[in-house]
């Protein structure tokens, strides 16, 4: 190298710029919506560990299987005993399996956003033609879709099983539709809460603990208070206490509008007026989560 260099320096008249074949890109520019869709599909695949290492596939896949196996067992029992009804209503299923859903949100929400913050890749996203709102929408939609897949798959297992067992078609279809509507609402709510908490911290472990604390502890606290209100003959307070945890919120909405049995102690579901309050709070929380995420990413890494 040194020899070449001195040779080049002595013969200055021979210096020239080589054309080594750089070319401008003149293909199609796929633009903002394509970039958003790509971010959405990558985040959705990432939520199940697809396209990531084998180790990171273990937990989401395991939780998915744990979600679906009880549904398969229930179908098998219903077919074997020739029952006229499924052992568990479609709307009850997500409430029973809530700890699995909470663990999934807690493990995948930080995976989705915390690593971008920790490795400071967020500014790289925004150097592409996507805007803050596109990033937030893509991440929100991806986690909500992943959650919907997690919660809707066992319902479909139940539905298909129920039809194979020749249960009443209209009855089962109505129940399944109500269940799907309720888990769609649940997915949006949980995804919003999980992402807002996870987007505050670049530490994965801390994000997981914080999401779990909000989802499960609030449920533990609320159901303890409800049980005490029930044992003290104060049933009027039970629906109002239920407003303070995500799981009981969804439970309240579906028992008010979607014909579900409330899982509250004593079976005191909210009436229609309270149901409207429940629905307003759920939609308000989803909108607030979206707004907070937009605000969070307005100034991240810039």
């Amino acid at each position, binding site marked *: 190298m040194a020899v070449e260099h001195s040779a080049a320096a002595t013969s200055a008249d021979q210096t020239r710029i080589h054309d080594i074949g750089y070319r401008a890109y003149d293909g199609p520019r796929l633009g903002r919506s394509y970039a958003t869709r790509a971010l959405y599909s990558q985040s959705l695949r990432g939520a199940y560990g697809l396209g*990531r*290492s084998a*180790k*990171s596939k273990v*937990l989401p896949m395991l939780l998915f299987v744990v979600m679906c196996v009880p549904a398969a067992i229930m179908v098998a029992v219903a077919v074997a005993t020739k029952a006229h009804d499924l052992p568990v209503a479609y709307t009850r299923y997500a409430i029973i399996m809530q*700890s*699995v859903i*909470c*663990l999934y949100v*807690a*493990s995948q929400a930080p995976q989705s956003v915390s*690593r971008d913050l920790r*490795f400071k890749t967020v500014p790289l996203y925004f150097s592409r033609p996507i805007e803050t709102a596109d990033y937030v929408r893509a991440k929100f939609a991806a986690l909500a879709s992943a959650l919907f897949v997690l919660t809707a798959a066992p319902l479909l297992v139940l539905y298909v099983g129920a039809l194979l067992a020749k249960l009443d078609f209209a009855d089962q279809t109505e129940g399944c539709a109500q269940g799907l509507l309720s888990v769609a609402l649940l997915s949006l709510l949980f995804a919003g809460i999980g992402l807002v908490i996870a987007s505050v*911290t670049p*530490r*994965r*472990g*801390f994000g*997981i*603990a*914080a999401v*779990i*604390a909000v989802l*499960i*502890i609030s449920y*533990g*606290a609320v159901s*303890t*208070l409800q*049980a*005490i*209100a029930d*044992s*003290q003959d*104060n049933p009027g307070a039970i629906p109002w206490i239920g407003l303070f945890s995500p799981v009981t919120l969804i439970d309240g909405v579906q028992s008010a509008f979607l014909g579900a049995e409330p899982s509250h102690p004593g079976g005191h579901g909210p009436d229609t007026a309270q149901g409207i309050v429940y629905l307003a709070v759920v939609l308000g929380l989803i909108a607030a989560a979206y707004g907070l995420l937009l605000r969070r990413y307005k100034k991240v890494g810039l």
Partner: protein
Amino acid sequence: MYDPTVARLTYRALLGRRRALILGALPLLLLVIAVAVRGLTGADDQTAADVLGGFALATMVPIIGVVAGTGAIGPEIDDGSVVYLLSKPIRRPTIILTKLTVAIAVTMAFSAVPTLIAGLVLNGNGQQIAVAYTVAALVASIAYAALFLLLGTVSRHAVVFGLVYALVWEALFGSLVPGARTLSIQQWALAVAHKVAGGDLVTSDVGLPTATVLLTAVTVLATWYAGQKLRSLTLAGEE
């Protein structure tokens, strides 16, 4: 076997900034619930046992144990700064023991003290319930801290596995499969609490001798194995 500098750094990592928030929020919630319940129902022994057993010991103590136990060593391994600690002339078991002491102290401070206060608020220590659950929280703190500190050295996903153990195994399986309750730190701690309270309000599925042996065995083995893991630690990059 105790290094004050390591202890000071661990305290700062555990109680610094946001981690202290989550550690402080749970006891605060317990106290709010205790005051609300006392206001709603008045002093009642069964209610006090329900709140302390159902919320404090079953939910709050394990989660604080997870945060403190894995938080004592997990983040350092995660971001690689543990090499600076390991390159100092301190024995690895000493590091583990120091971090364990700090984790136990933090878990006890944030779980047993609020449990005692909540118990006093709920029924003024009637039938020794407050003291019994405080003792259970103290005993459980030691075992949880040791177990989750070990998890922190073994896995990068220690928090998830810790929570899976605390919430799925102890809460979900424990309520469905009776055999799972024998292998649950919560039940071992309850066995000790049963001895303290004496009555029928605090019950456990495990006998006191079994519980004591298992508690000691888990704590000692977890600490020893964590020391072994730290001796041959490999630093992995982000997946």
